[in-house]
């Protein structure tokens, strides 16, 4: 191991490059340039192909507009596909920063911000992580701090009662702390900042979690080792895997996050070099670097574009990079988990918040001193919400093109022409274009299946057959819900542009099943939009209706799709089950420990949570 920082060290601005030649600037720039050149090439080809198709009956303004929209949309798809391809290449040449079993020295605060969450589930996760840390032998170097921003007094009272139970169970006096802010200024970023301003100097590192985060003790210790091995490392992000999904939608998302995301994240890591991401949780920061670089200002003006920075994580990563610190995602770190939304409505609510946060970053694109890649990451985040509008624009322009098309002139020169001249039929070019676009969507995922079978990773997903079946069904399912998500995203962007603030809604981490009435209430406007769109097109030109059914029908039946996909029930692990993931077949020890604590803490309804004062010595959740 290299030199070990002492408490308070690591706060100077780092200079020079990290000692990882394979991740040096030349490789990073090569990966970026390759992805950019390929994406632009594919996008230009798609745009040109569409222009050729449109020129059959002469080029109109609408053909140019549609060609531009196809170009932009294809660029975005190609950029994503390139990320997947780079990920597959990077996987074949894995890098590990494992520091072996070297002793660790730094003190770490594990921060658990909570906001109107279920305290039993959250505190049970803390108990499980604390027990997992105890098994590493380094538990004495870690403190947990529950940072409550809960606004509801009844939940806050439950938090305090369950905190006492947690401390008693884990014998964690002076190791696990709880504090509740009187005013939740700055939301989650303000919550973390408040802790650092009051207690930050006591710690070398801080592991920032979400209320639904769960991490293996060995993973946390390994993160400290890597932070200590590289004194220029300001932030180390893990790739959290979604666990515990129950509904059809939740399990499809869980499969996607477990099966594809590690590959795409490796591609991202290849391109970003030392200007990596921060996804807001399951990441460790060097406290001195974070304090020195990440004090977020309040932006001038009112929300949604002004005020407190909503998607603070991207900005904090950019600020650390600006100050010269390395920000890195280590995709080889296992044992990092989170939960995901169980239904489309909860997903769309979360997406609404992210949309506002990402669009707010347009204010920061020209912020002084940022690395070019940080600006590009902001732009990517904005494009993630704007790009679907290109497809919507293309569909609308295609409908308008039919209405505005000129009457075919079969005899352009009637005095010297015996036979009619028919417009060129360039349908083949449209088919080529469609195949190319579907290829961009399908190819990376199918290659990931092949790669997983080759590397043996598919075993955790029920074997090659189940993984392929899950991938094909996931592709079908994501295609089915794509038009519904398109309208939700369009509404989100419109709301932000019209100045509506999303506020800070609590994440729904409960059962998540939606009844028909609830699904209808949340999506009737989508169903009505789909019906109105199909009727309009049928009135305008009936022949186009069949082509629009793949988009119109999912909109029309959005309430049914939302209700159906929110259903599901827990079942025993079965390798042949669709969307099987490794954590279902062989749960990580910390997941089993969490379930064990939850089971031990289960109380009949209405029974107050016992504290040590109430029950004397409660039975510990761990033997």
């Amino acid at each position: 191991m290299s030199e070990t920082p002492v408490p308070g060290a690591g706060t100077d601005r780092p200079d020079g490059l990290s000692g990882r030649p394979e991740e040096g600037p030349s490789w990073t720039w090569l990966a970026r340039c390759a992805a950019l050149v390929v994406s632009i090439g594919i996008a230009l080809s798609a745009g040109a192909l569409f222009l050729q198709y449109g020129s059959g009956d002469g080029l109109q303004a609408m053909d140019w507009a549609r060609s531009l929209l196809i170009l932009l949309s294809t660029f975005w798809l190609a950029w994503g596909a390139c990320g997947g391809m780079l990920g597959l290449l990077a996987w074949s040449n894995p890098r590990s920063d494992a520091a072996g079993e070297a002793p660790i020295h730094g003190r770490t605060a594990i921060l658990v911000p909570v906001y109107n969450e279920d305290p039993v589930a959250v505190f049970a996760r803390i108990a499980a992580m604390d027990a997992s840390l105890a098994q590493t032998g380094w538990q004495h170097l870690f403190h947990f701090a529950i940072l409550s921003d809960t606004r509801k007094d009844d939940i806050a009272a439950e938090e305090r009662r369950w905190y006492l139970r947690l401390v008693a169970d884990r014998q964690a006096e002076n190791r696990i702390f709880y504090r509740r802010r009187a005013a939740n200024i700055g939301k989650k970023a303000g919550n973390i900042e408040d802790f650092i301003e009051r207690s930050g100097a006591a710690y070398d590192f801080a592991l920032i979690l979400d209320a639904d985060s769960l991490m293996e003790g060995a993973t946390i210790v390994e993160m400290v080792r890597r932070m200590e091995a590289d004194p220029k490392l300001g932030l180390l992000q893990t790739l959290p895997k979604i666990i515990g999904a129950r509904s059809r939608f939740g399990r499809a998302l869980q499969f996607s996050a477990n099966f594809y995301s590690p590959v795409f994240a490796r591609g991202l890591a290849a391109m970003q070099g030392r200007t990596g991401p921060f996804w807001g949780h399951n990441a460790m920061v060097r406290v001195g670097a974070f304090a020195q670089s990440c004090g977020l200002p309040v932006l001038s003006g009112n929300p949604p574009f002004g005020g407190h920075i909503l998607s603070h994580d991207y900005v904090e990563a950019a600020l650390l990079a600006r100050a010269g610190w390395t920000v890195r995602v280590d995709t080889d770190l296992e044992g990092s988990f989170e939960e995901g939304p169980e239904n489309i409505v909860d997903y769309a609510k979360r997406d609404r918040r992210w949309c506002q946060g990402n669009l707010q970053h347009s204010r920061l694109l020209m912020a002084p001193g940022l690395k070019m890649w940080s600006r590009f990451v902001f732009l990517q985040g904005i494009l993630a919400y704007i790009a679907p509008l290109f497809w919507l624009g293309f569909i609308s322009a295609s409908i308008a093109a039919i209405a505005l098309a000129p009457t075919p002139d079969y005899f352009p020169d009637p005095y010297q022409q015996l036979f009619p001249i028919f417009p060129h039929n360039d349908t083949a070019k449209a088919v080529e274009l469609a195949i190319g676009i579907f290829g961009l969507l399908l190819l990376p995922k199918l290659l990931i299946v092949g790669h997983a079978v080759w590397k043996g990773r598919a075993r955790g997903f029920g074997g090659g057959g189940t993984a392929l079946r899950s991938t094909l069904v996931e592709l079908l399912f994501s295609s089915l819900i794509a038009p519904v998500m398109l309208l939700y995203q369009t509404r989100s962007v419109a709301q932000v542009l019209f100045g509506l603030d999303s506020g800070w809604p609590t994440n729904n981490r409960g059962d998540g099943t939606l009844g028909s009435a609830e699904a209808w209430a949340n999506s009737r406007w989508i169903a009505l939009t789909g019906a109105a769109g199909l009727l309009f097109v049928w009135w305008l030109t009936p022949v186009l209706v069949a082509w629009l059914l793949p988009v119109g029908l999912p909109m029309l039946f959005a309430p049914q799709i939302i209700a159906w996909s929110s259903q599901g029930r827990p079942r025993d692990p079965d390798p042949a089950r669709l969307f099987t993931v490794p954590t279902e077949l062989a749960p990580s020890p910390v997941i089993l420990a969490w379930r064990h604590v939850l089971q031990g803490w289960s109380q009949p309804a209405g029974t107050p949570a016992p504290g040590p004062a109430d029950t004397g010595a409660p039975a510990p959740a761990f033997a």
Partner: protein
Amino acid sequence: MDAETQPLEADDVGVTRGALPVAPLGMPKQLLERPEGLRTRLLALVGAGVRTRGLGN
């Protein structure tokens, strides 16, 4: 632990339980928006003039 630790109960923040270390660390606010310069002010002035003329005033 080098930092002073002391139990805090119902302090001015809200409620704190346990011996949360008292070890302040400053987080200076970072510059993210360019301060208004002469060029920005001139552009704003011209923009305001164009808008005013556009309204027919």
